[in-house]
């Protein structure tokens, strides 16, 4: 699970990208993190993953504090960034080996996982080629595979479905479901509200650095006393801010 307590981050000392954020992402749930462009989603994810440090507040992942128990906390999660254009010069298999080395996955285990993931994502024939030769969707898939090769407790995915073909998109959603159902955590950001509505057990909507709503979709409809779609509620929520 992921916990944020009073997390604040400002740029240039004045503009508060994230303001006094409190968030609980429990185990066994797919948690959607929604918000318009520039709302503070990416800043929050960067703080959770240790890329940037909050000015104030505390972040723990499975009880491990990212600021004080950094390495242990980083071993808890796997992070898929929004731009998959990294490690382009490595071959698919070289990248997966790199990730397995960094997360110290034993030989037999990494072999099984790589083969299984490659099969599921239909990437077996591409592992010998450089990532540069991959299409956008294939790059996304290899990044996801790199993260899953160490079986992290917590998945943190930044816009993971962008560019995936229908089959891979379906596979990934299926895997997210399986992961959450096995009592672990999936935290992902998205702009695609239909996906969030269907896939997420719980969503948080952030705008201008503050959480506007956090809960299940039925709770949200109840809260606003309407039976509108998530999309119209989202637009309503973020319109006047």
């Amino acid at each position, binding site marked *: 699970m992921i916990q944020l307590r009073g997390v604040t981050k400002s740029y240039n000392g004045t503009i508060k990208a994230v303001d006094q954020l409190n968030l609980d992402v429990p185990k066994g749930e797919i948690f959607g993190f929604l918000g318009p462009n520039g709302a503070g989603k990416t800043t929050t994810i960067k703080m959770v993953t240790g890329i940037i440090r909050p000015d104030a507040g505390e972040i723990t992942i499975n009880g491990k504090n990212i600021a004080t128990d950094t390495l242990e906390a980083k071993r808890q999660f796997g992070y898929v960034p929004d731009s998959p254009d990294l490690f382009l010069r490595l071959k698919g298999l070289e990248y997966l*080996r790199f990730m397995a*080395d960094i*997360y110290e996955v034993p030989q037999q285990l990494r072999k099984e996982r790589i083969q299984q993931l490659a099969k599921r994502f239909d990437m077996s024939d591409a592992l010998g080629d450089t990532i540069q030769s991959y299409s956008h969707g294939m790059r996304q898939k290899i990044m996801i595979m790199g993260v899953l090769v160490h079986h992290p407790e917590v998945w943190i995915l930044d816009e993971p479905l962008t560019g995936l073909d229908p089959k891979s998109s379906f596979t990934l959603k299926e895997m997210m479901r399986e992961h959450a159902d096995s009592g672990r955590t999936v935290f992902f950001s998205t702009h695609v509200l239909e996906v969030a509505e269907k896939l997420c057990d719980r969503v948080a909507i952030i705008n201008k650095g503050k959480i506007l709503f956090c809960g299940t979709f039925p709770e949200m409809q109840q809260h606003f006393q309407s039976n509108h779609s998530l999309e119209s509620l989202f637009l309503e929520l973020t319109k006047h801010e």
Partner: protein
Amino acid sequence: MNKVLLLTKIMLKNAGSSLGSKKGSGWKTLLILLAIGVGLIPLMAALVVFVAGLYDGLAQIGQEGALLGLGIAGTSLAIFLLGIVYVLSVFYFSQDVEHFLPMPIAPGEILGAKFLVALLYEYLTALTMIAPIFITYGVKSGGGFLYYLFALLVFVALPVIPLTLAILLVMVFMRYTNIGKYKDRFRLLGGLIAIAGGLGFQAFVQRQTSGTDSSVEQLQQMIAAGEQGLLGIVTKLFPASKLGALAILESSTWSGFANLLGFFAIAVAGLLLFLWVGNRLYFSGVMGISESRAKRKKIDEAAFQKGIRPRSMWLAYADKEWKVLWRTPAFFMNCALSSIFFPLFGLVPLLSRQDSAELLASLSGWLQGGHMGGISLVVAFSAFVVMASTNSTSITAITREGQGIFLSKTLPIPAGQLLVAKLIPGTLLSVISMALLVAEAAWFIQLPSLFIILAVVVGIPGILFVNLLGLILDLQMPKLEWGSEQEAVKQNLNPLFSMLMGMVTAALCIVLAFSLEASLLQMGVGLFVLFVLADLFLFRLLLRKGPSWLEKMEG
């Protein structure tokens, strides 16, 4: 034309961000520029002194005008050789063409803008060479307003012809190497052949002019002898330089004006030729330059097993760095290749001089002579240090990763291990350079084995020192926001800074050696102890402070 200027501005702006990162490091930028300026002063001063001496000598035989011809021709040659590298960078490896192609811009406009960018770089290069010559000559000969005006005009037209030649050479190679599925390798090969062609040309010129080194008297004799030697050859290759020289010499007469017109006409003709050839060759050579080949074949079981064998974290990271360095053309050309080319550069004059055997015999005798041993060791040590400092692998270790460094921060690898992994490729490449240089020297000069062993033993801490310093510097001011890999290594001032530090270190050691007059063994022990201590200090600094420097990089 407006679009050409607009494009040029955009291309330069993309390059301009190299002057420091965006967060208020203005003083750092200033410091670097200042350091480069200070570093250039001795070079330019030496040139002024040299030119002034040459002028006095030539004036006695009424041949001082040849100086301008030599200056223009020499600058043309330098522009041509450097142009090959610039053109590869600007035209082929900067990868911005693919962004421009879908826009409503005529191909000729992209070509024109690229030409202007390369031309601007060439002006900066040419300025440091030709300005001291023109000004010294002007002061000595008491040149008037027209002299300086004509000199300025000649300067403006000067780089066009050699740059065009360089472009044509590169374009032909790149056009016919951009083939099929092995494009990646062929393209690299094309670049290498172009550079080798340049080097070969240099060797050829040197062989033709063997017996003439840069001493003033010999140069005077050569010029006085007329169309022989270096001047003859270079002016034959760049015949226009004669027109340029005559234009300035006769700046007060109509014939000077006619020569100037002729010089410009040739430059314009070069430009037209460039556009004509460029339109035919450039786009077919550059299209799909960022694509790479794929086999899409399943890896067989044995290779798969081998390909996933576990390694320790730092080794995995170092291996990743090493592979990226060799597989990215821009990194390969600027980091890996230079470590092999620099030692080979040294070979060119050795091989091309007809009297090299004699020279080397006397050099080897000098090296083995008693009290010179210590100084020779310092000279060898300095060569290794300078060579390591011209290798930009460690000084761009963080920069090369670009935005990827932030992803690295999410990985559970201890920062210390990551930094050690970053240090390895640059150090290894410098050691390869050293090994090549030592092998070369041992082959041509009969070096005593004690000398070779000592040189390597002190060389390794020296190399490590430069690489540690480079990595620490890059941690201080990495340039993480780049659009193309070319930008990361080429349009980045940190490598210059590293080079400067290497030169200062070498110079200090040489000065110290001359004042100490130590024996070979004493000097060896002294250098070893000094630099091992310095390395220990820097290494401790890297491990203690480095993690928090990494921490502070926020994207």
